[in-house]
């Protein structure tokens, strides 16, 4: 299925300062779109607007040609959002964290899948350790395991490479491109330079 997220004339004002104004954006299946720009230029805000969390903005959003407010359910059913804060409970084990996400996304309870997702992200052997005892990079990996766990077409990732080691970054880059090749789309902010690929498109803010 081809997906199309469209933004027209997007503008956002914070504290009497325009973060961006008149921004047009088209994101299709099979694309990795990287939003770049200096700190404080509104990358996170843009991602939050595009993922439907903020309503305080100008302009219009369309999902597959329908106004977002009417297509919201379908949009949410296709969205995987990974924010600045990883959304991981430190008091729960990685396995328990993923179990919640599995249920939240409406998937059926499947421990096999959770174990596979953790293994593929390099957390084999840490499944039952309280997440609070893991390193920052490992905690981020628990959140990233959701990419494998929950099949969703549109990935919106805010600085996914934070605290991830070099091998992990290379793996994640491959995963993003593979997802786009398989017909998904990826919207990502990062300061890390992604390797050139015909699927990659850069959008500069600020």
């Amino acid at each position, binding site marked *: 299925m081809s997906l199309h997220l469209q933004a027209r004339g997007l503008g956002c004002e914070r504290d009497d300062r325009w973060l961006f104004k008149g921004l047009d954006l088209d994101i299709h299946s099979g694309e990795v779109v990287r939003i770049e720009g200096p700190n404080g230029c509104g990358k996170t805000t843009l991602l939050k607007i595009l993922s439907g*969390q903020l309503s305080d903005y100008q302009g219009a959003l369309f999902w597959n040609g329908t106004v977002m407010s009417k297509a919201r359910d379908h949009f949410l059913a296709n969205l995987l959002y990974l924010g600045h804060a990883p959304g991981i409970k430190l008091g729960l084990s990685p396995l328990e964290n993923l179990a*919640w996400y599995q249920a*939240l996304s*409406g998937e059926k309870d499947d421990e096999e899948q959770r174990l596979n997702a953790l293994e593929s992200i390099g957390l084999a052997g840490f499944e039952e350790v309280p997440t609070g005892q893991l390193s920052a990079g490992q905690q981020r990996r628990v959140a990233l395991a959701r990419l494998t766990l929950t099949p969703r077409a549109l990935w919106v990732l805010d600085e996914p490479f934070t605290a991830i080691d070099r091998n992990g970054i290379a793996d994640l880059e491959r995963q993003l491109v593979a997802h786009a090749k398989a017909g998904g789309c990826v919207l990502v902010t990062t300061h890390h330079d992604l390797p050139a690929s015909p699927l990659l498109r850069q959008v500069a803010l600020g």
Partner: protein
Amino acid sequence: MIAVKATLLRDLTLLLRRRGEILNPLVFFALVITLFPMAISPDPALLAIIAPGLLWVAALLAALLSLDSLFRSDYDDGSLEQLLLAPHSLAALSLAKVAVHWLLTGLPLALIAPLLGVMLSLPTGSYAVLALSLALGSASLSLIGAIGAALTVGLARGGVLLSLLVLPLTIPVLIFGVGAVQAAIVGSGVAAHLAILGALLAASLMLAPWAIAASLRISING
């Protein structure tokens, strides 16, 4: 439905692993009640008159104290964003969180209240009504309080504001809760008071989840 159950289980597990947070309101409740006989007078006749009010006010404040943390950790670690973006009714998901709050705060408060009632020489015969009225009333308190907690979750120090927002709304629960215990003491019918507490609970069950969901959306927008 799976998501609601999973949220319920997740919150229960989390709170049961941090027992301190469950004990805090109970300890506060017990401390306040212990101080009254010392500060006012150990005279059983006097204490018996004021006991229902004292127990209810202390339980109300203890429940209020624990409300601030209801959505706080979810807000801080980003789980709240994920809750909002889940393809489920946010009202149902927040109801699961409120249910956990009641199970681990309101219900324990209702269960230890009769014990503390002994300390205030609450007349026999009113203990069951005290526990029942607190169990019913604290469920309404959790629901009403969650609206305030959702509205103030984005503020760094929302504790005081939360109490200011929520306290006026809890007055009816307080009045009929105390009324039920007093009616039990004088031997008149408690059914009417309990029925009104039940009605308040039914009304908050119906309306509060939507208000909580809307408040969470406002907070995350800010």
